[in-house]
C-alpha cells in the first residue's frame, strides 16, 4: 500500500508539472495579455507600466520557474484583477463546486446503477428502450439548451425552483432552499456522466449475469433477489467504479457550463472570469487545484476499487 501511494505521488508530481507547463505557456503565448483587456483609451505608457508591474517583461521560462518556486511553498500569487491572493479566491469558490459535483456524482451513480440494472434485466423490453433512448438524448442534447429549457419550465412557468444562485448561506441557510437551488444544476451536470454510467452498468450487468457463478448461486437455492443484487451487482459494480474515475474530469469541465447557466458561484464561473480578465495567476491557480482534485478523486476511486475487488488487493 505504501509503495502504491509513493508511486502514485511520483506520477502526480509529473502530471502536475506537465499540466502547469502546458497551461502556463499556452496562456502566455495566446494573443492579448492583461493589457488587452484594459480601458480602450489607456496610453502605451500606461500599458507598459502595467506590464512591468506584473512582471510580464520577463521571458516566459523565467516567469514559469518563478511561479513554480512560489507555488511549492503554497503561494499561488496574487490575482491581477482583484489583488486578492489566488489561494483565497479559490478557497472561497471551491466548496460550491465540490457541493455541485459531489451531489452530481452521488445522484448519477445511484440513478445510473438503478437505471442500468433495470435496462439489463428488462433487455429488449419497453423499459430498456426508454432508458436507452433517454441516454442518447442526455448525451447529445447540449446542456446549456437543456438548462435553459429547465429554467423556463420550472422557474418561469411553474415557479417551483429558483433559476440561479447558490441560495442563502451562513445564518440564513435552510436545507430546503439549498436543495431547491441544487436541483437543476445537479440534474444538468448529471447529463454529462449519467448516460455513461447507465450504459456501462447495463453492459456490465449483462455480462455478469451470464457468468457461471451466477448459476452456482441459483443452484445453492439463493433467492432471485440475492442472485441479482448480491452476487451479480457486486461484480458488475467493479468496472463501474473505474469508469467513475474516468468521468470525473468530464464532470469538472461540465461544471463550467452548468455553473454559468445557473449563476452558481463556484470554480467554473471563476475560471470564466479569470480567462476573460487574462488573470494569469488565477488561471494557473485554478489549473493546479483542478488537477489536484482529479488526482485525489482518482486515487480515492482506486482505493475503493481495491476494496471491492479482492483480486487487486494483493497488487496494491
Amino acid at each position, binding site marked *: 500500500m505504501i509503495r502504491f501511494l509513493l508511486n502514485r505521488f511520483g506520477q502526480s508530481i509529473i502530471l502536475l508539472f506537465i499540466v502547469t507547463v502546458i497551461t502556463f505557456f499556452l496562456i502566455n503565448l495566446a494573443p492579448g495579455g492583461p493589457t488587452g483587456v484594459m480601458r480602450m483609451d489607456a496610453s502605451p505608457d500606461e500599458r507598459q507600466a502595467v506590464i512591468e508591474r506584473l512582471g510580464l517583461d520577463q521571458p516566459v521560462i523565467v516567469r514559469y520557474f518563478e511561479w513554480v518556486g512560489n507555488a511549492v511553498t503554497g503561494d499561488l500569487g496574487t490575482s491581477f484583477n482583484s489583488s486578492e491572493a489566488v489561494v483565497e479566491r479559490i478557497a472561497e469558490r471551491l466548496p460550491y463546486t465540490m457541493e455541485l459535483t459531489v451531489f452530481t456524482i452521488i445522484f448519477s451513480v445511484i440513478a445510473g446503477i438503478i437505471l442500468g440494472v433495470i435496462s439489463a434485466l428488462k433487455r429488449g423490453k419497453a423499459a430498456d428502450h426508454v432508458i436507452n433512448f433517454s441516454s442518447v438524448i442526455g448525451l447529445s442534447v447540449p446542456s446549456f439548451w437543456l438548462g435553459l429549457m429547465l429554467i423556463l419550465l420550472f422557474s418561469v412557468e411553474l415557479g417551483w425552483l429558483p433559476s440561479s444562485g447558490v441560495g442563502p448561506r451562513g445564518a440564513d441557510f435552510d436545507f430546503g432552499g439549498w436543495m431547491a437551488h441544487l436541483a437543476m444544476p445537479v440534474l444538468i451536470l448529471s447529463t454529462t456522466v449519467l448516460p455513461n454510467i447507465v450504459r456501462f452498468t447495463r453492459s456490465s450487468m449483462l455480462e455478469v449475469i451470464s457468468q457461471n*457463478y451466477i448459476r*452456482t448461486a441459483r*443452484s*445453492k*437455492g439463493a433467492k*432471485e433477489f440475492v442472485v441479482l443484487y448480491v452476487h451479480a451487482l*457486486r*461484480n458488475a459494480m467493479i468496472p463501474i467504479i473505474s469508469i467513475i474515475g474516468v468521468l470525473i474530469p468530464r464532470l469538472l469541465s461540465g461544471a463550467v457550463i452548468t455553473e454559468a447557466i445557473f449563476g452558481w458561484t463556484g470554480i467554473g464561473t471563476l475560471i470564466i472570469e479569470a480567462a476573460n480578465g487574462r488573470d494569469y495567476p488565477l488561471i494557473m491557480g485554478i489549473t493546479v487545484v483542478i488537477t489536484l482534485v482529479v488526482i485525489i478523486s482518482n486515487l480515492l476511486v482506486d482505493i475503493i476499487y481495491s476494496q471491492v475487488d479482492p483480486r487487486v488487493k494483493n497488487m496494491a
Partner: protein
Amino acid sequence: MLKVEGLVTGYQGKDGFVRAVDGVSFDIEKGETVCIVGESGSGKSVTSMSVMRLVEFENGEIISGSIEYMGEELTTKTNEEMRKIRGAEISMIFQEPLTALNPVFTIGQQIVEAIRYHEPLKKKEAMDKAEDLLTLVGLSEPKTRLKQYPHELSGGMRQRVMIAIALASKPKLLIADEPTTALDVTIEAQILELLRKLRNEEDMSIMLITHDIGVAAELSHRIIIMYAGKVMEIAETSDLFELPHHPYTKGLLESIPKMSGARGELLPTIEGTIPGVNQMPEGCRFAPRCSFATEKCHQEEPPLQKVGRRDVACWHVEEFTASQVDPFHRKEDPVESNS
C-alpha cells in the same frame, strides 16, 4: 427417487428454437450412482440443468416431459418451490471449476451462504460447519481457506470447494457435471477418488456426467448412454461392458485408451461427428455414423425399448448383439469390467 420421462428441453437460439434434449427418460434409485455418458453436445448438461430447473434462466425451456423427484413433479414447481430443493435436496457441481465461484466473496462466505439457505444456523456455527465440510472434501488448512478468495486457490481446490458447497445441506441427489474436465490428470484422479469416497460413505445418489466411459466404468452402478439429445442405451455397468447392445455404445467402448495396449496403437474411434442441434437427421440420429444402419433406420426413429434388463433405442439390437461373437475375448486386451 428421480424419474425423468420424455424430457424435451429447448433453447431459443439465434436461428430459431432448438431441442437440445429430445425425449429423454431414465431413473435413479436411492443410493445409486448413475453415469450419463456421451460425446460433447449430446445434451448431458442440458439434462442435468433441467433437473435443477436452471435452464429457464439461460433462455431455455422445458417443453414437455416429467421430472419426478421423491414422487413430486418438478417441472410444474414455481421458482420459489424449486429454491427449497436446489442445494438442499438436489445439488450440482459444474463443469467449470475456475469460474463457478463468485470472485468477490470468500470461500467461507460462499459455503456459509449455501448452508444458511437451508438450515437456520448462526454465522459462527455455519462457519464451523463450513470448516468441517472443507475437511471432508480433503482441503488442507481449512481455517485459512475459509478466508481466501477463489483466485487464491488452484482449479482442483476450487472444485473441492464446489463439492463442499454442494454437500452443505446433505443433498439426497448430487449431480456432478463433468467435474474433472477442466482439471489436469492427477487432480482429476484425486477428485474422482473424492467422489468415490462420497459415494461409499455418504448416503446419497449421484448422477455423474462424463464423456469418459472409463470414469463411468469405475464409479457407476448404471450407465446412461446419450447421443444427440436422446438416450441410446441404459444398462447396468457390468452388463454394458460385457455386451453393448447399441452400436454407439460399442463405439464409445472401443475408444477407451487401453493402458495395457501397445504404445502407438491407433484407438478405434467412431467416424463422423455428432450432428448439430438444428441439423438432426431423420430416423435414428446415429444412422449416419452407424455401420448397421438400414433403410428403416434412416426413416423411422427407434424408440427406447426394454431388452432384458436394459433399455435400448435401436432397430437392430438382435442382429447387432449376435454379430459380436464373444466380445470379451475377441481382442487381445479386454475391456475391464467394473469390479
